[in-house]
Structure formats: structure tokens, C-alpha cells
């Protein structure tokens, strides 16, 4: 028998089903939200619990377009191709989302990139962004942390998505917002003093912080806004279902592990050789 103290009610803010309308974060679905929200703003509402203006929603739409790099050879997306090679879409999408559960690459690291910007912002509060004192604080933080999320661009000199997102921010006249301005100053110091370029995680983090989005929500929102590239690969991969991804030819494998050995005291082979 279940004891009452074992089943405390769980509070939820995200939803409640009624008969004729439904609740979502304190809003009535058909009365308040229908006809007023874009897909991006609905996703942002789902994650943050806050509604966003039309211009904010348009900015999120542009962010989603900016990060639409659907190249199937990029590792998490390659995982989609390998899994969807058996003909189903959703397992492929899940494969990439699992690969995104990472502190290394992928949109989820936007949370840590945002935390880094916030932490550096506290250190440099009141300092002139062009001053040596500002630069010293940024360098000190980066060296103390070791690996700072939002910096480093693998296999190319700079992250083209940062430049594209900068254009988006300027078109929406957000370039003087506090976190974007701070981030630009941090990126300059990182480039000049640490020889490391900012990547899209840091740029996304700055943009989202200026929208009032907390760091803990920045990563999940970035993942959610990346789902289009996952579905693109999963739909195409499931339709193709290529045999080569279900099993690579043996000639493509380079075995580097332990050489053959036998169990102590065992004969060379306990079963007949059929060859």
C-alpha cells in the first residue's frame, strides 16, 4: 500500500489539460497563444516560461537559420545517419540529441558559454573594455578555467556562423545591448591575447542573454532551435537507409587492439574450423 508521505504532489508550470482549452505556462492555448506565436517563440516560451516580442521571436528565427549547418559528416549528425540507416527517423534524431548531451561540442554547451560571459562580466564590471585591466581580467579568467566554452573553432580559422550572427544582431539593432557588447570585447581579447577565436556557442549565448534568457535555459533553447538540421539528416538518412552505414566493409576497419591470445591451458581452438 502506498503511504501518503511517499506521493507528494508535483508542481508543474508547463501545462494542464482542460475540456475546451489548455493551459501552458499560465496562458490559455487557444485564447492567448494561438495566432500570436511563431514556432521559435513557442519553443522559447516552453523553455523559459516567458513570452517574447515579435522582434525577439524574429531574432530567434534568424538565430535558428544561422546555425542550420546540416553537413552530415559533422559527428553528431553522422550519428543520425548511422542510426537512421535502419530506416526510421526518430531514432536518428534521438542519436544526435544524445550526442549533444556533451560538455565538448554541440548547442547544449551554450549554457556554459553563457555562464562564462556572465562570470567574466562580473570580473570586468566598471572597467573600460579597451583597457589593459579589462584584458587582464579576461585572460586571468580563461587561464584559471582552462577550457572555456564558446572558444575554439575546430578545423577552420574562424567560425563563419559568428560573423553571420553578428550581421543578424546588427540588422535587429541589438549590437549595443550589454551582453553582445561585452562579448565582442571578450572575443577581441581572446583573439589578441590568447590566439583563440569565439565560436557560435559564445555568440548565441550573448544574444540569448540580451533577451533575458538565463544561462541554464540557453543550452536547451539552442538545442531546440537546432532540431531542423537533425530532422533534415534523419529524414534523408531513413529514406536512403544505406547498407554501407548499417555495416562498413571490413576493409574500412583498422584493428589496432590486442593481438590473438588463448586462455591459459586451453587448446588452440575448442571448436572445429569450418574453413
Amino acid at each position: 500500500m502506498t503511504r501518503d508521505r511517499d506521493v507528494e504532489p508535483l508542481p508543474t508550470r508547463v501545462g494542464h489539460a482542460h475540456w475546451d482549452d489548455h493551459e501552458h505556462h499560465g496562458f490559455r492555448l487557444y485564447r492567448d497563444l494561438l495566432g500570436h506565436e511563431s514556432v521559435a517563440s513557442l519553443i522559447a516560451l516552453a523553455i523559459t516560461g516567458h513570452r517574447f516580442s515579435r522582434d525577439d521571436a524574429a531574432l530567434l528565427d534568424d538565430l535558428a537559420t544561422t546555425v542550420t549547418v546540416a553537413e552530415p559528416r559533422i559527428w553528431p549528425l553522422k550519428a543520425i545517419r548511422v542510426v537512421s540507416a535502419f530506416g526510421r527517423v526518430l531514432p536518428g534524431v534521438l542519436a544526435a540529441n544524445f550526442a549533444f548531451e556533451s560538455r565538448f561540442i554541440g548547442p547544449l554547451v551554450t549554457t556554459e558559454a553563457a555562464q562564462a560571459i556572465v562570470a567574466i562580466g562580473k570580473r570586468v564590471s566598471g572597467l573600460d573594455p579597451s583597457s589593459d585591466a579589462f584584458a587582464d581580467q579576461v585572460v586571468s579568467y580563461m587561464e584559471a578555467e582552462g577550457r572555456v566554452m564558446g572558444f575554439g573553432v575546430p578545423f577552420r580559422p574562424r567560425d563563419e556562423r559568428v560573423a553571420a550572427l553578428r550581421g543578424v544582431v546588427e540588422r535587429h539593432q541589438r549590437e549595443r545591448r550589454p551582453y553582445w557588447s561585452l562579448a565582442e570585447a571578450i572575443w577581441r581579447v581572446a583573439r589578441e591575447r590568447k590566439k583563440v577565436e569565439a565560436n557560435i556557442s559564445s555568440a548565441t549565448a550573448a544574444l540569448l542573454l540580451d533577451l533575458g534568457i538565463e544561462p541554464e535555459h540557453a543550452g536547451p533553447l539552442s538545442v531546440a532551435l537546432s532540431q531542423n538540421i537533425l530532422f533534415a539528416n534523419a529524414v534523408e538518412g531513413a529514406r536512403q537507409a544505406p547498407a554501407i552505414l548499417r555495416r562498413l566493409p571490413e576493409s574500412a576497419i583498422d584493428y589496432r587492439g590486442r593481438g590473438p591470445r588463448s586462455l591459459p591451458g586451453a587448446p588452440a581452438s575448442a571448436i572445429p574450423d569450418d574453413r
Partner: protein
Amino acid sequence: MSHDQAGKGSGADLSASGPVRERPWPEKLPAYVVSPGDDPRIFGYSALGDLAQAHSFSDGLFLSLTGELPSPAASRAFAITLWAASALTVADAPAHAGVLGRLSGATPAANVALVATAAAERAQYLCERHAGWLAGIRNGERTPCTQTAIDPSDAVFARRIARTLGSAGLALEWLGEGPTADTVILAALTLLGLGTDESLVTVLTAACLTTSLAEAWAWKPGQFQDYPMDLPPFRYQP
């Protein structure tokens, strides 16, 4: 066709340029554990010629994670620990999640993935929650875990696991009187040389996967009327 095709496709071959194409990459995929061929070997041992003749599947799991077969004593202790870790009920998240997937009509493959996800998340949670204590065990400390069993049946089961492992030669009396079953299992696996997060998560997930799935397969897709939908109750508080 109503879709906007403006700006789509220039007709040029775009695949010859870009950062992926313009950098040298290895042409083969390295393998480190299982050798390919007509006599596949796991860390050097023939799967059929050696391992299947003289070892249990749990020994193979140990081999896969450590690179070596367990001693007879370690094999016995590892098997006991796996049995203990397999005994999750439908109250635990892996089987509960599997029931929900089954009710929803998920394919067998999808439900295996769903249960494996819950099991692996549970295992990762345990590792993170006990990280400092497990590091101490790896460094030779033998102190009881500060987290003790709340549920009386968990405390009894924990003592039974420790006693059974003790009879197999794995001394765990230093865990004291109040450990949880999970902490006994984590301690045993760490003492057996499987104390990395990677090994612990793999073992704990593998151990409960089939029992949790069996609990799910006992349901029929769409058997919603038998599922306690308000357990636990959710209260909408915007």
C-alpha cells in the same frame, strides 16, 4: 508546386570544397576491442573458440570493460553484483519509463532505447551523487557512505548483498549498517576494478536492462486503463 524554390541550386558541383573536403582525414575507422574477420576476437580472445567454451557472459562484460578476464573469485563477485543490480522494480525509472513507452505503442527497438536511456541516466546520477565517496574507495579509503538507506527493505537488501558478496570473498563490512543497495553495488564494482564512470554506467545499465524491459513487455500497447495516471499527482501552478 507551391514551395518557394527561389535561389535554390546553382548547378555547380559544390561538394569539392569546404572544410571537410579540403583537409586530410584517415581512410579507415580504427578498432580497439573486437577484431573483424571470421573468428572475431574480443581483446584477443576468440569469442567462440575461447570465451564461449569456458566463460560466462558476465565474464565477457568484465573483459569488455577491463581488457582482462576476471579471476574465479572476481568472476563470482561480479556475477553476484550484476544479479543484485538487475533487481530493479517497476517503481524504478527504467522499468517505469519502459511501461510508458510500451503503453504508447513504441516499437521494441525504440522501447529498448527508452529503457536504456533511463537506466543509463539513473546510473550516471548515482555516479555523480557518489563521486567523492567513490574516488575515496579508488584511493584506498574504506569509510561508510554518508547516504544511508531510508526504506527499510532497501537497508535489508543492501545487507543481504554485502553478506552474499562477503561469502564470495569480497569484504564489505566497512560499509557499516546502513548502506543502500545502490551504494553496496557501487562499492563492489569499484573494488572489482570497474570504478570509472564509464564502467559503472555500462554495468549498471546492462544489469537492469532486460529485467526492466521484461516489466514493460508484460503490458500491452494501449492498456491505458490499468496505468495509474495520477501517480504521483501533478498540480498545475503557473
